[in-house]
């Protein structure tokens, strides 16, 4: 990017105007509407957007510093919306002009690390090239680093990743994501990463009320609705499910709803005597939710010898 080719030097910058022009407002509004809860995440993103916008204005006035470091880390429990926010982040960075294309490439350890000596470097570079001009989203980043195996090829991928994060800062933004405790350990053993990542964003767990709201939004998107008793059952389901192992916030809710839809379809099929209307087709009732094994003690009970019908 050559800065000296511009026309007359700018002396005033209208931040409101550039806020409107860049379409950042739209992204932020979408973020607010599409995502329930996550208040700390939203405020961090708004702060980041403001910072980038001001940086851009400073650049226009010749107060420029280099490209700011945009690499980020998203930490949070499963199902707290890390991937969804990463998509929005890519869009945001694209509209602000910090990445040229704004696509999101999602990878895990398997996509970066090879199986034999000499296999890792080309594989990692291939992925990095695909992500150039966009955002590389590295899910469960800590799997790259396996301290128990000193010949693990993950280390090679880390080195290449660090090198590109430093040298090609204009070309791509890397977002590392994972569960909080393991991410902390990963950063502690790889100080190179911590220092190259400017924005650490933590995703809190959803409250029960937020999860209920999320479940209704999810259903509404597929033109389904809960009747009042089913709503109460769903609230109870969420509280019960949270106490059971492998709870994954919004993802657990989505899976529960998928199974409820399955049961609803089955029920309609068995009960139907004549023509049914659209309202019946799109209503999830209490029975559809109450049939879940979560109300009968969860997964472990189901694995017993006398296995009943699938829940």
């Amino acid at each position, binding site marked *: 990017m050559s800065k000296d080719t511009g026309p007359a030097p700018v002396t005033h910058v209208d931040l409101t105007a550039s806020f409107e022009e860049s379409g950042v407002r739209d992204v932020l509004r979408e973020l607010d509407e599409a995502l329930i809860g996550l208040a700390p995440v939203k405020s961090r993103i708004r702060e980041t957007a403001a910072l980038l916008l001001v940086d851009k204005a400073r650049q226009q006035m010749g107060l420029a510093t280099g490209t700011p470091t945009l690499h980020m880390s998203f930490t949070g429990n499963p199902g707290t919306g890390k991937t969804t926010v990463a998509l929005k982040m890519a869009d945001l960075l694209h509209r602000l002009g910090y990445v040229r294309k704004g696509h999101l490439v999602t990878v895990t350890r398997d996509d970066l690390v090879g199986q034999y000596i000499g296999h890792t470097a*080309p594989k990692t570079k291939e992925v990095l090239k*695909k992500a150039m*001009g*966009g955002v590389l989203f590295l899910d469960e980043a800590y799997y790259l680093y396996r301290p128990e195996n000193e010949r693990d090829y993950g280390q090679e991928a880390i080195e290449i990743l660090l090198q590109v994060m430093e040298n090609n800062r204009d070309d791509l933004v890397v977002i590392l994501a994972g569960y909080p405790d393991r991410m902390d350990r990963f950063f502690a053993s790889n100080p190179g990463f911590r220092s190259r990542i400017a924005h650490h964003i933590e995703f809190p767990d959803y409250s029960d009320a937020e999860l209920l709201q999320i479940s209704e939004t999810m259903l509404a998107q597929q033109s389904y609705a809960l009747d009042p008793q089913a709503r109460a059952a769903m609230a109870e389901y969420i509280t019960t499910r949270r106490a059971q192992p492998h709870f994954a916030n919004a993802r657990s809710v989505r899976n529960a709803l998928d199974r409820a839809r399955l049961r609803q379809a089955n029920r309609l099929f068995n009960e139907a005597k004549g023509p049914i209307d659209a309202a019946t087709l799109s209503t999830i009732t209490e029975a559809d939710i109450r049939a879940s094994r979560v109300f009968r003690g969860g997964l472990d009970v189901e694995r017993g010898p006398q296995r009943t019908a699938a829940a």
Partner: protein
Amino acid sequence: MKLRQGQFSFLPDLTDDDIRVQAQYAIDNGWAVSVEYTDDPHPRNTYWEMWGHPMFDNRDAAAVVFEVNECRKEHGGKYIRVIAFDASPGWESMRMGFIVNRPAQEPGFRLVRQEGAGRVVRYTIESYAAREPEGARYA
């Protein structure tokens, strides 16, 4: 003698930014961009050595510049070009090709005359560089 082959060869050498813009044009047209190198500058030498695979899935030309620079590290003393292949029906051929790296010394070509039957003379050209074995042609 500066080798004049492909696009832009009568212009000053392309900068990395020029390469990026040209490669982006190719990508935006849906052509697969790849990097090739050779140490045989003969104009009829069509098939150069491939530097990695053609970049089918890359949406941004920064990757092309990255590969060109990687190739320069290894083959900086040879010719390197960027080509764009169009796979759409009716084309299935190269749309673009331009040299992005050349040796420091380009000795040029000599004219070879071969006398045939009946005082026929056949002419051909041969690169001075190609007299050396492969790998030893340029410093």
